[in-house]
């Protein structure tokens, strides 16, 4: 009689196969969901295109998101702001008609939030779009990605090397990285962002 662990291993093979397939399936399922149903670019109530507004027409971001330079939140424009222009412009397009119907019913447009940070993160737009920040080369696109090329807004973050990563939400490491690079005062103090 001889002895070896090989027969024992061989006996394990069916179980390992099933387990392995299960695990592989798990990865595939996860990947499939992440790839095809990322949920990072929801369909908005009105098909507003940043590409047309910010890209082609070169409307500055803060024309609509007026709050950004003085408030913690950038804010979404009020319906009246949209109507201000679209009373005149492209009034016949179906999406604009949709807008006008909101306006006439005095209803707000239920935009779906795309860029979102957890509630325990206190990010202020004001600090990040101040003159000082702009001087350091921080644009809206730094965090929000190439918005001017997107028809529908998509979650975008950045890799450490600075390249855009589509459908990837922001993580703490990226904030930290930027704070370190720019040597932000107390930039790595937790209470700068969490309180």
């Amino acid at each position, binding site marked *: *009689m*001889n*002895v*070896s*662990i*090989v027969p024992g291993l061989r006996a394990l093979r069916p179980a390992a196969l099933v387990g392995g397939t299960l695990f592989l399936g798990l990865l595939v399922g996860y990947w499939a969901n992440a790839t095809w149903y990322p949920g990072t670019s929801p369909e908005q109530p009105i098909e507003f295109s940043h590409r047309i507004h910010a890209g082609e027409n070169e409307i500055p971001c803060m024309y609509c998101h007026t709050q950004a330079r003085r408030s913690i939140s950038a804010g979404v424009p009020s319906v009246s702001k949209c109507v201000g222009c679209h009373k005149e412009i492209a009034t016949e397009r179906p999406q604009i008609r949709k807008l006008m119907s909101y306006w006439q019913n005095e209803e707000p447009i239920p935009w779906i939030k795309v860029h979102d940070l957890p509630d325990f993160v206190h990010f202020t737009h004001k600090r990040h779009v101040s003159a000082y920040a702009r001087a350091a080369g921080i644009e809206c696109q730094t965090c929000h990605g190439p918005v001017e090329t997107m028809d529908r807004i998509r979650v975008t973050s950045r890799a450490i090397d600075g390249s855009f990563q589509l459908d990837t939400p922001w993580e703490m490491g990226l904030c930290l990285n930027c704070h370190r690079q720019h040597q932000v005062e107390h930039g*790595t103090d937790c209470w700068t962002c969490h309180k």
Partner: protein
Amino acid sequence: MSNFAVGLFREPQSALAAAGTLKGAGFATPELMSPVPLEGVEEVLGEKKSVIKRFTLFGALIGGISGFVLAAGTSVLFVHPTGGRPIITIPPYLIITYELLILFGILFTVLGFFISARLPAIRDRVYVPEAAVDQFAVSVACDNHEHFKRAESILREAGAEQVRDMAEDD
């Protein structure tokens, strides 16, 4: 494929004696299989030296150093002052050092054991199940049938109850 002559003994002394005789007769160093560690093997088959202690020492060193580097290094990567103490505080880090020293010492000892005991056995090896119960086996490699006959006779003489001709795959 190599062949072995395996003799089974009731008494450890006989098995030891057989092994000694075999070795003296010019056979390759025989292997003893026993249900308990045998005393006196070394007198018969010569001193054994293992590398385990080196593994242990090496592991402990690695563990100790990496423990300290882990504790001290990570605390300067993201500085979190606590309790008015220095960021690199030696006394508490020595505890981490110590624990990792032990951990790595243990892990390397085990590694050393497996390597030096040639375990796990991936290849088929000659084995006598009785040797795990209450019999003592002496196995010796035999190049050919004559060799085997000689070994068998030596084993039988020493008091082997059975002598088996066994083979193991290479």
